[in-house]
């Protein structure tokens, strides 16, 4: 598993009358195969997750993934850390499903026929066979999230960070995506409001008001959150 380290990290955003602190000074070492980040809206979960591949930059402190500094070696870090967004529509940037996967594969396969074949294989691996030439707009929510996940896994990351990946899905698709994420060989950092899903992770971190309010086994973290929420 990868080693993700946050060393006295804070995140502030400028507003009209000063700065707003969205993440207070936080130090964490994440080494477990699956880590759930839970807590109320605005508690800093997504900010913490976005720090891990440089979508948000730390105002102070350092974030490292396997020794790579996210701020200085962002390119190398992003090859290690894939990010799944809440809304897959924001993540899919090509017109059709197969073209979106192929975009992720351009670095690995320069030959277009090999790339297309690899993309088709990946689609089939995630239950999207036969949908390659469909517009990403015409796919169902569950299919779009599967496609977004396949697009991230195509870059062969060591870590998958998923920011509320089941929030927009119905029960069956949420379960499907949740099962899939937890079965991945990659290290998983999962931001979620689905407490049943969070409890299946190894470690749970409860965020509140931009701070870590609890850090321990996931089941205990969920129990803590249920009491304090």
């Amino acid at each position, binding site marked *: 598993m990868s080693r993700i380290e946050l060393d006295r990290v804070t995140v502030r955003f400028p507003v009209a009358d000063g700065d707003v602190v969205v993440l207070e000074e936080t130090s964490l070492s994440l080494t477990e195969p699956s880590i759930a980040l839970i807590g109320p809206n605005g508690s800093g979960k997504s900010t913490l997750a976005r720090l891990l591949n440089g979508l948000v930059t730390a105002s102070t402190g350092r974030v490292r993934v396997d020794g790579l500094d996210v701020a200085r070696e962002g*390119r190398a870090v*992003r090859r290690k850390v*894939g990010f799944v967004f809440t809304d897959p529509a*924001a993540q899919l940037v*090509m017109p059709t499903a197969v*073209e979106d996967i192929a*975009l992720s594969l351009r670095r690995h396969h320069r030959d277009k026929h090999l790339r297309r074949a690899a993309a088709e294989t990946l689609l089939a691996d995630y239950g999207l066979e036969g949908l390659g030439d469909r517009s990403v707009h015409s796919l169902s929510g569950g299919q779009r999230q599967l496609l977004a996940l396949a697009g991230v896994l195509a870059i062969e990351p060591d870590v998958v960070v998923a920011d509320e990946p089941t929030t927009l899905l119905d029960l069956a698709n949420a379960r499907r995506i949740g099962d899939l994420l937890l079965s991945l060989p990659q290290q998983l950092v999962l931001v979620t409001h689905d407490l049943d899903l969070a409890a299946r992770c190894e470690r749970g971190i409860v965020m509140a008001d931009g701070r870590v309010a609890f850090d321990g086994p996931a089941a205990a973290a969920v129990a803590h959150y249920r009491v304090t929420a």
Partner: protein
Amino acid sequence: MSGDLLGLHQPGTTWLHRLPAGAKLLGLLAASIVVVALHGPATVVAELAVTLAVVASSRMGWRSLLRSLRGLLLVVAMLAAYLWWQQGWMRAVESVGDLVTLVLLATVLTVTTPVDEMLDTITRGLRPLRRIGVDPDGVALAFSLLLRGIPTTLKLADETRDAAVARGLERDPRARLTPLVIRVVAHARATGDALHARGIHD
């Protein structure tokens, strides 16, 4: 514009599908020059006739094409009325004919060419310009994102119009335009985040 089809590849076996992407891009470039260079209503009729023959041979489906063109027809009607009022009917026919011709030809290009193939072609074509600082991968990606952005922007415009209507503000241009601009900018930022997160073109 032809939002449903522009930017969306439809697999097929027609001669246009088999033609290399580079030839089609050069063809579109040549057609654009011809369309802009030639003037007169007779030329417009000839352009449209040839273009419709090309559209027919792509077998993209007239019904989906016409459905896609509904949005374009509104723009065309407004443009035609304005040009007729300002510069006369000949200028209106010519400009509108040129616009429809180029949109149809661009639609044929995207319908018959996978974006991936287009990216490869543009990257290859621009490679000699690397010496003067041009980034071929970046230009190719920008081109494909532009194509993807057209139907997305039209979808956002539809949603924004529906939201304005739902609030009884259908006659207020600010209620339609301001949220649309904000949502398009937000979408552009989200696309940037998505590319960044996927490590594409770092």
